[in-house]
C-alpha cells in the first residue's frame, strides 16, 4: 500500500475528494432554477425524462426498418442523438432539482437526504423489477410463438428493449426522487 504523502494513494484520494466537491458544487448551483424549483416543474421534468426514454427506444426500433445507408437512416440517427442529448440535459436538471439525492456518494448526504434516497431507490427498484419481469415474459412469449427457433426477437427490438431497460435502471431513482420531493423551503439566504 502506498500511503506516502504525494504517493499514488494520496493523489487518488485528493482527486476523488476534488471530484466529489465539484459534483457537490454542481448540484447545489442554480443554473436554471425555473426548470426545477417547484414540485410541478420537477414532475414535468420527470415525465419528460420518461417520454424521452420511450422516444429513444422508438427511434431505435424504427431504425431497424429503415433502408441501410439511406437518408432515413441518417435522419433517424440525428433524431437519436438529439433525443440522447435532451435526455442528458433533463437528467442533469433532475439531479440539480433533487440536489444530487440519487447521484452523490452517501457521505455527501445528510440523514434526511439519505432517507429520501432510500425511499426513492426502493420504489425505483420495485418498478424496475416489474419492467424486467415484463421483458422476461415478453421474451418467453416471443420464443413460444416462434417455436423456440431463436428468431423470435429481431435485433432492433432487442436493442431497443435493452436501451429502454438500461435507461430506466439508470434514471428511475432520480425520476422517482424528483416526483416525490415536496417544494423546497424558500432559500432566505439567496441573493436573488
Amino acid at each position, binding site marked *: 500500500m502506498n500511503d506516502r504523502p504525494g504517493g499514488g494513494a494520496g493523489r487518488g484520494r485528493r482527486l476523488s475528494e476534488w471530484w466529489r466537491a465539484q459534483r457537490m458544487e454542481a448540484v447545489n448551483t442554480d443554473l436554471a432554477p425555473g426548470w426545477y424549483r417547484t414540485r410541478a416543474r420537477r414532475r414535468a421534468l420527470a415525465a419528460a425524462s420518461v417520454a424521452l426514454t420511450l422516444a429513444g427506444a422508438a427511434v431505435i426500433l424504427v431504425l431497424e426498418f429503415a433502408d441501410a445507408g439511406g437518408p432515413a437512416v441518417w435522419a433517424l440517427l440525428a433524431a437519436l442523438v438529439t433525443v440522447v442529448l435532451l435526455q442528458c440535459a433533463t437528467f442533469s436538471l433532475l439531479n440539480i432539482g433533487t*440536489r444530487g439525492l440519487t447521484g452523490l456518494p452517501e457521505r455527501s*448526504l*445528510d*440523514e*434526511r*437526504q439519505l432517507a429520501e434516497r432510500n425511499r426513492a431507490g426502493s420504489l425505483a427498484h420495485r418498478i424496475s423489477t416489474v419492467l424486467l419481469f415484463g421483458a422476461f415474459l415478453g421474451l418467453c412469449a416471443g420464443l413460444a410463438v416462434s417455436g423456440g427457433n431463436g428468431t423470435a426477437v429481431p435485433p432492433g427490438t432487442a436493442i431497443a428493449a435493452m436501451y429502454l431497460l438500461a435507461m430506466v435502471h439508470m434514471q428511475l431513482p432520480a425520476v422517482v426522487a424528483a416526483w416525490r420531493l*415536496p417544494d*423546497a*423551503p*424558500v*432559500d*432566505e*439566504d439567496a441573493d436573488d
Partner: protein
Amino acid sequence: MSSEAIYNRIAVLRAERGISRRDLAQALGVHYQTVGYLERGEYSPSLYLALRIADYFEVPVEVVFSLKPFPRLGSG
C-alpha cells in the same frame, strides 16, 4: 400532519438569535434545505440530530421539540 408529527421551535430560536438557515445547516453538517424541511415539520430528525440541534441552541431538547404543538405566544 400525521399522528407521528414532531413539533419544533427551530425557526423561533433561529430568528431570536439571528442565525440564518445556512449557518445553522453548516453548524449541524446538514443541507440547508433539511433545516427548512425540519422547520416546516416535513421531516422529523433522528434523536442524534435533535440532540445536536438542542445542543447548538444550548437548551434542553424539550425546549426545541415536542409531541404536542407549542403554545402560541400570549396564549397563556
